[in-house]
């Protein structure tokens, strides 16, 4: 297993390399001159030239790429064009709020979603199933910005129970976490139910029941464990998406996370920040996939890695 993980970690490097090349190219293909944007509306050509030189944008593209690449290999992602602070600091400050928000949303939504899914599968086509799935479908269909505004209107503006913006205390996490987790919980419920329903029709379940095991044991021990593989995959994917900073939720709740940083960076053509963020998001996805694969082995011991 350890060998496998190490092998996978090495395999990560070429992927990141390709991502780096692609993102560099795409970012430089975006229309708009970042020097002109950074210099601002009052600047004359001389100032724009100064800014261009300062940002290193006056050099030929291949040269810019080589320098971006060599510096990246040394762990230096350059400085933000907008704030002139190192990109690493810029992202590090924004990463923690996003990570904490993601964890808090994933925590409640996975537990709630899976329970809902299990209940729905066990009582298939009965009223708990109908209620559970109605909730889940609404959760998927309700756009998160609308849910965010609704929650904010009710709990902050009308009732005054919870704060609206900021990330200072646990109370600040409640509304954004609910908004962000709602869709995840819904997806988890749907997946758990579908997967569990399928497993419950397998032969070994009939055998388990025939052995005289209690229904509870059959569901919890035999069915659920086998049904978990697609659920865990989905969980990994969702986690990856949320870590990228949900732009909508971060904007609505003014969350100081990476999603808003990306929006700001794209609108000002802040090349270094966009590049580093996209690389970071790719790395997150690759790592999460790795963790998911490892989890497969733990859930189903018949899966072996070499």
């Amino acid at each position, binding site marked *: 297993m350890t060998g496998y993980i190490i092998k996978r970690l090495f395999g990560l490097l070429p992927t990141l390399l390709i991502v780096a090349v692609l993102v560099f190219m795409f970012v430089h293909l*975006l*229309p*708009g*001159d970042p020097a*002109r*944007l*950074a*210099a*601002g*509306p*009052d*600047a*004359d*050509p*001389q*100032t724009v030239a*100064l*800014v261009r*030189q*300062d940002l290193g944008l006056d050099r030929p593209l291949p040269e810019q790429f080589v320098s971006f690449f060599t510096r990246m290999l040394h762990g230096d992602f350059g400085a933000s064009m*907008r*704030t*002139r*602070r190192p990109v690493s600091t*810029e992202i590090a*400050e*924004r990463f923690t709020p996003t990570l904490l928000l993601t964890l808090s949303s994933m925590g409640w939504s996975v537990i709630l979603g899976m329970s809902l899914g299990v209940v729905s599968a066990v009582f298939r086509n009965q009223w708990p199933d109908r209620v559970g799935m109605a909730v889940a479908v609404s959760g998927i269909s309700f756009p998160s910005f609308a849910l965010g*505004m609704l929650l*904010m*209107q009710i709990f*902050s*503006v009308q009732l*005054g129970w919870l*704060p*609206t*913006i*900021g*990330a200072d205390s646990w109370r600040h996490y409640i509304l954004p976490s609910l908004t962000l987790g709602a869709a995840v919980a819904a997806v988890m419920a749907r997946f758990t139910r579908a997967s569990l329903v399928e497993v419950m029709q397998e032969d070994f379940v009939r055998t388990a029941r025939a052995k005289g095991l209690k229904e509870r044991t059959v569901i919890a021990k035999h069915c659920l464990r086998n049904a978990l593989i697609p659920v865990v995959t989905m969980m990994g994917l969702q986690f990856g998406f949320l870590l990228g900073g949900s732009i909508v939720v971060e*904007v*609505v*709740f*003014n969350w*100081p*996370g990476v999603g*808003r*940083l990306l929006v*700001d960076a794209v*609108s*000002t*053509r802040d090349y270094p920040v966009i590049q580093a963020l996209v690389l970071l998001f790719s790395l997150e996805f690759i790592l999460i996939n790795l963790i998911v694969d490892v989890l497969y082995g733990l859930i189903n011991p018949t899966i072996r890695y070499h």
Partner: protein
Amino acid sequence: MKHRLTQLLAALALGAAVSLPALASKDVVIAIDQNFTTMDPYDANDTLSPAVAKSFYQGLYGFDRSMKIVPLLAESHVVSKDGLVYTLKLKRGVKFHDGSDFNAEAVKVTFDRVTNPENKLKRYNLYKNIAKTEVVDPYTVRFTLKESFSPFINTLAHPTGVIISSVALARLGKGIAQSPVGTGPFRFVEWKQGDFVRVEKFAGYWRKGYPKVDTLTWRPVADNNTRSAILQTGEAHFIYSVPYEQAEVLKSKPGIELTASPSIIHRFMSMNTQQKPFDNVKVREAINYAINKEALIKVAFSGYAIPADGVLPRGMEHALKLGPWPYDPAKARELLKEAGYPNGFESTLWAAVNNTTWVKAIQFLQQQLGQVGIKVQVQALETGQRVEKVESAKDAASAPVRMYYMGWSSSTGEADWAMRPILASESFPPRMYNTAYYKNDAVDADIAKALNTTSADEKDKLYADAQRRIWKDAPWAFLVTEQLLSARNKKLTGMYVMPDGSFDFNEIELK
């Protein structure tokens, strides 16, 4: 006195009862629609960052609420006859937040920094005309200019023209952008990226009795609904801007006051005067006649704007009232016929910004032009597209821009910067923003001469002449002057939005 005593007793009683501090600290939260980029005004290209920096920085001069120049760290100035040498007397007894003294040396160090191209500061442009800054004595400083420039004091009063502690600058270098040290009413505390900038009262502030609040927190809140929500929950005391569609909602809330303040933000539609059919002045006049400005204000600005009544926005020094241009579609059709377009023509109309207000405006213009037979395709440009298609166009002949709906606000608050970058022939893109590619030698001469004269009368005459000529040539469809919408908690006083979109908060107080 008696009243105050009862208040104090009441506060003490309350404090004892619920164990709150007897004198609650006064924290004011201000939410703004954009994010700040830097705490170094000399490296800021936006209006907001220097506006926030006014909490801890001050200039030699500044603007008051109505954009009148007032001395801050300077006491007075004398200009030499040739308009090249400005000698300034400085205020005594002013301290920086780090305890060092404000004096001529600090002024010199500050301006030497921005005028040195090596430092690559974004505001180099504004100050590059300063040839040298000299210390005459500790409280007298002398600026020598490369070319005479009559609005030089306006330049010094520009929100970016602040004095930085020379001690802090020597110690921090580029780091000054993260830990600013100035002479302002507040001392910088913390900048949490994407969340807030917090400043606290500076005990050694030279204006005694000020500031009247303990801390100020500036929060960038981009989402319109969220900004309005936090004003209602009390999490913010002041919000700017208020989107037009929320104005009515906020107006009806108790405890909240909505303010529409005058601005120097002009909205107009430039027409490429070097290209057919806009090279014909009759066509340009026709377009001016074809647009109902009052209706435009209702449709796109929910009533919060005034029809443009001149080349310069109302209220600006030297502004001449020439309009508004009357709405007369019949006359427009007639003029088009005279110009040889009896059935109108087809063209394109772009907007410089892509958001609801701008899109509504160009759609309305499209409809109005359609009434007189001019069929236009409209497109609201995203920032990158704008830079590419309009601002980076190589020369007048190949520029693709035809009709272009844009806005301009003179960042120095004076006439030169409200005309030269958008109407002088030296300002064709990519140099500046003369998107009408308007060239009138008499106007160019007026603008250039006005820069060199030190006589106010002479200047007034020159600018009046330029404005009359521009109005007659109609390189733009003159549309509206915006109003700025802000809202505040009624407990907050002394916070104003200035006509250039900056803030005046010298008197800020929380009841």
